[in-house]
C-alpha cells in the first residue's frame, strides 16, 4: 500500500527532473534573469515538496483519509469508455465536422449511459446538434469544425 502511495511523488519528482533537464537549453549567462530561472525554481520546489512527501509516507503514517469511493473494475471501465467516447468525438469532428459527429456522439453516449429509448434519443441528439450549431453560427458567429472529409 505504501508503495502505491509513492507513485505520485515519484512521478512529480520525475517531472521536476525533466523540467530541469530541458530548462538547461534556455540558460543565458548574459542576463541577470534568464528564461531558465523561473522553470528551474518551480522544478526545484516541486522536487523538494515531493521528497518531503516520500519521507512522510515512509516514516510517518499518512493520516489523510480519502472521501472518494474506491475505484472498482466497473469504475475503471467507465472512465475508459468516457475517454474513448471523447477521443472518438474529437476524431470525428476532425474528419466529418461538428454537426454529424455531435449527432453520433450524443446518441452513442446516451446509449452507453443506459438510455434505451431510441426514438427519444434520436430526436434529442438531432435537436442538440442543430441548436448548438445554429447558436454558434448565427448568434455567436463562431465557426465550428467543418471536417476534412466533407
Amino acid at each position, binding site marked *: 500500500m505504501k508503495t502505491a502511495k509513492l507513485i505520485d511523488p515519484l512521478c512529480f519528482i520525475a517531472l521536476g527532473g525533466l523540467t530541469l533537464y530541458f*530548462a538547461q537549453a534556455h540558460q543565458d549567462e548574459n542576463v541577470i*534573469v534568464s528564461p531558465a530561472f*523561473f522553470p528551474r525554481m518551480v*522544478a526545484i520546489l*516541486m522536487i523538494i515538496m515531493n521528497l518531503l512527501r516520500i519521507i512522510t509516507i515512509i516514516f510517518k503514517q499518512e493520516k489523510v483519509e480519502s472521501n472518494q469511493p474506491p475505484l472498482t473494475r466497473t469504475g475503471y471501465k467507465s472512465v475508459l469508455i468516457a475517454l474513448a467516447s471523447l477521443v472518438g468525438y474529437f476524431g470525428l*469532428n476532425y474528419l466529418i465536422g461538428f454537426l454529424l459527429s455531435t449527432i453520433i456522439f450524443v446518441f452513442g453516449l446516451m446509449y452507453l449511459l*443506459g438510455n434505451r429509448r431510441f426514438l427519444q434519443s434520436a430526436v434529442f441528439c438531432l435537436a442538440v446538434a442543430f441548436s448548438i450549431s445554429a447558436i454558434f453560427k448565427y448568434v*455567436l458567429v463562431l465557426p465550428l469544425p467543418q471536417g476534412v472529409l466533407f
Partner: protein
Amino acid sequence: MDFDLLAQSFVLIMQPMNLIIIMLSVTMGIIIGALPGLTVVMACALLVPLTYGFPAIQSFISLLGIYCGAVYGGSVSAILLGIPGTPAAAATMIDGFALCKKGQAGKALGIACIASSVAGIFSALVMTFLSPQVAKISLLFGPVEYFGIAFFALSILVLLAGKSLLKGFTAILVGLLCTTIGIEPLTGGIRFTFGNETLTSGLDLIPVAVGLFGFSQVFDDVMAIRSGRSVKKVQTLQNLLPKWRELRRIAPVIGKSSLIGTFIGVIPGIGPETASFIGYGEAKRSSKNRDQFGHGAIEGVAAPEAGNNGVTGGAMIPMLTLGVPGDAPTAILLGGLMLHGLTVGPMLFRDSLNFVYPIFIGFIIANIFMGVIGLSLARVFARVISIRQELLLPVICVFCFVGAYATRLSLFDVGVAMGFGLLGFYFNRNDYPVSPILVAIILGPMLEMNMANALNVGNGSFMVFLSTPVGAIFVILAWLNIGLALYNRYRKQNRPPAGADSTGG
C-alpha cells in the same frame, strides 16, 4: 461632482428604451456567462459590432449590462454542474457545488446573485463618486507591487490545499509549470514547445478550466451512473433568498470582498479570478466556521461572487480616467468607446461629462437588474439539473468541447482540455486540490514577468521585493499566510486525540 447633471443622467437612463436595452443585455450576459467555455470577453466582443449603429450611450450601457451579467453568469454552471462558466467562478464552485449536492442549489444561486449585485453596486458607486481619486492607486503599482500581489494571491491558495499541504503546494507548482510553456515574457524566447507551433502561445486558460472542471466532472458522473450511484439530488427551489440570520452571516463577507474586488479591479491586469480567490481566502481565514468551507459554507459562495463582481466597477476606473483597461473585458469596452469617437483619460471627465454620468448611472442600474433577473432566472436554471443525467451529460460534454474549441478555433485546445480532464479526475481521486492549478496558471505569467523585471531592476538581489512599502506589505502578508497555514496544520496533527485526559494524569 455636478449633481444636476447626475440627476439629468438618471432621468435619461430611466427612459423605457434604455431600461429595455440594459435588461436584455444583462440577461444575454448571464446566459453566455453560464455556458462553460464562453467567456466574459467573448460576450463583450460579440456585442460591440452589434451595437455599433446605436447611439454612444445606448451602445455602452448595453456593453456594461452584458459585462456584469456575464461575470455573475459564470457562477450558475459552477453551482449547478460543478463546471465554472468563467474562470472567475472557480472559487464559487467549491462551496456552491457542495450546496447543490446537498439539495440547496436554489439557496446557492440566490446568495451568489445577491452578493454579485451588492458588490457590483458598491463598485459602481466607488466608480461614480471617487474615480479620479481612486485612479491614483493604479499609478502606485510597478513590478515589485505586482509581484507582491501575485505572490500574496498564491499564498491564499494554501488555504485551499485541503487535507495535505504538500499536495496543495504540488498542485500550485503544477499550475506554475504549465505557464512556462510558450513564449517567455521578458526575452521572448520559446520554451518547452517541442516543435509544436500551437504551443508557442502557451496553454490557453479556457481549455484548461474546461478540462479540469468540466471533463473531469464528466468522467466522475459517467463512473457514478454506470456504478449505479445516483448523482442527482432533489433541489429545494423555494427560499432563494437567504434567511435573516444567514444574511447577517454573509453581510460582512460581502462587504469585505466588495472592497477587495474593487481594489483589485483598479489595478490593471489582475482580473476577477484573483479577486474571487482572495475574497474566498480572506472569508475562510476570518471565519469561525472554517471547517465548513469546501463543504457548502454560504460564506464560501458569497465571498468569491462579491469579489469577482466588485472588480467590474473597479476595472472601469483606470479605463475611464487613464485609458488603461483594468482587465480584459474593459479592454473590449475601451474599444467600444473609441468606436464612437470618445477619447478616454482626464479629458473625458472635462469634456464629456454628459456621456460619463449616464455610464455611471447605467452601470448601477445594470447591477440592480442583474440582481432581479438573476433571482428570477435562478429557478429556471436550477431545473436544468432535474433533467435526466443520460440526457444532460452528453450535452455538457458537447458544451465543454465547443467551449474549449471556441477560444482559438483549434482542435488542439480540445485535446488540451481532455488531457487536463484526465489530470483533474486523477487529482480528485487522489485528494489533490484542483482549483490551485487554475489560479496558478492565471497568476503565473504575472508572477514570472514581474519577478524578472524587479530582479533586473534590483541587480539580482531578492531584497528588491521589500524595497517599496506596498510590495513589502504584500510579500510579508504572503509569508504570514504560509506560516500560519503550516502552524495550524502542525497544531492539528499534534492535537491529543478526543477523550484523552488533558491533565496527563
